[in-house]
């Protein structure tokens, strides 16, 4: 194959383009899009981790990758036993279950 351009320069130029695009990104706008897409709250801890140029639906597009830092927590007691969070009392769920089962059995 006949080489007609310097690949190092192409690669460098491509990386420079990605780096320039990184700087131009509205990170808060991206945060809102990702929060909508994934139905979760991302907060301020988001940063660009990489990117590439690619073809999508017959047009040249830019794919940017992001890393998001989550703060999650769990509860446990002095014995080290995990304590599940209670958002709905178990007895309320159980009451619904019994009622549903009763209806089905009598149907």
């Amino acid at each position: 194959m006949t080489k007609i351009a310097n690949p190092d320069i192409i690669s460098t130029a491509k990386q420079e383009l990605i780096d320039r695009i990184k700087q131009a990104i509205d990170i808060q706008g991206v945060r809102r899009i990702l929060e909508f897409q994934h139905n979760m709250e991302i907060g301020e801890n988001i940063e660009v981790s990489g990117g590439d140029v690619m073809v999508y639906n017959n047009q040249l597009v830019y794919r940017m990758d992001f890393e998001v830092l989550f703060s999650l927590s769990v509860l446990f007691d002095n014995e080290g036993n995990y304590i599940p969070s209670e958002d709905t009392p178990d007895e309320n769920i159980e009451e619904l279950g019994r009622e549903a089962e009763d209806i089905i059995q009598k149907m």
Partner: protein
Amino acid sequence: MAHTIGIVNLKGGVGKTTTAVNLAAYLSDAGNRTLLIDCDPQGSATAMIGVPKRKPAWSLFDALDGRIRLKDAVAPAWTPMLDAIPVRPDFNRTEFEDAPEFFQKHILSDGLNEIKDGYDYIVLDTPPSVGYISINALAASDSLLIPVQCEYLAYASLVRLLKYIRHMKGTAHPGMKLLGVLLTMHDGLQPISGKIIKNIREHLKDLVFDVIIPRSIDLCESSSYGIPVLFKSPDSPGAVSYKRLADEVIGRIATSRFYGI
């Protein structure tokens, strides 16, 4: 002759339309002649079957009010094995709900009897309300599939729906059967989701389908594109789960595995 499946829940936002459209798509993809009927005046299922862009000449409600025969409202959908009866999105729902004398509860089932021989399965996407449209849909259904979101209020709504079905069995539709309860929008990050699944399986046992539909970006995206997930992201978790549902539905109907008989 077709088996008619009513996708029902009196609560909105539990995945009825997503289930109706994707179940119909996978039933047809398995080689079954399938008809999807949008009984919800909001027209959400209609928007997902490609019909609105072709400006349907007729709507389900033209047939229900006697202007045309039901078979004349059938329009081709995405594949040769899948047809649909749309509704016009600009339909004035209140007008119909306020005019109960306009309908008889068996108009839909009478119309379906004329076209049932042409299909293996008919799937009805029903409105999230009690009215003459939903009563028609219930009366026309051979069995009912109930999608239930894995959340507390949706579980409470299931109990209300079961009471309503029990009432209908005792009055207007004694032959009503349950095909199954489908758990939808499962989110593994939400502890309540797991609790609901565990409890509902303990109490309703085999009535609950094995497959659980996950909360999935692919299902949301396919809705926004107006196509079944089968044609958008066939390898996604949402797509795989709806394919499994279609397999379970086919198996249950083939073996007459119904509940509430």
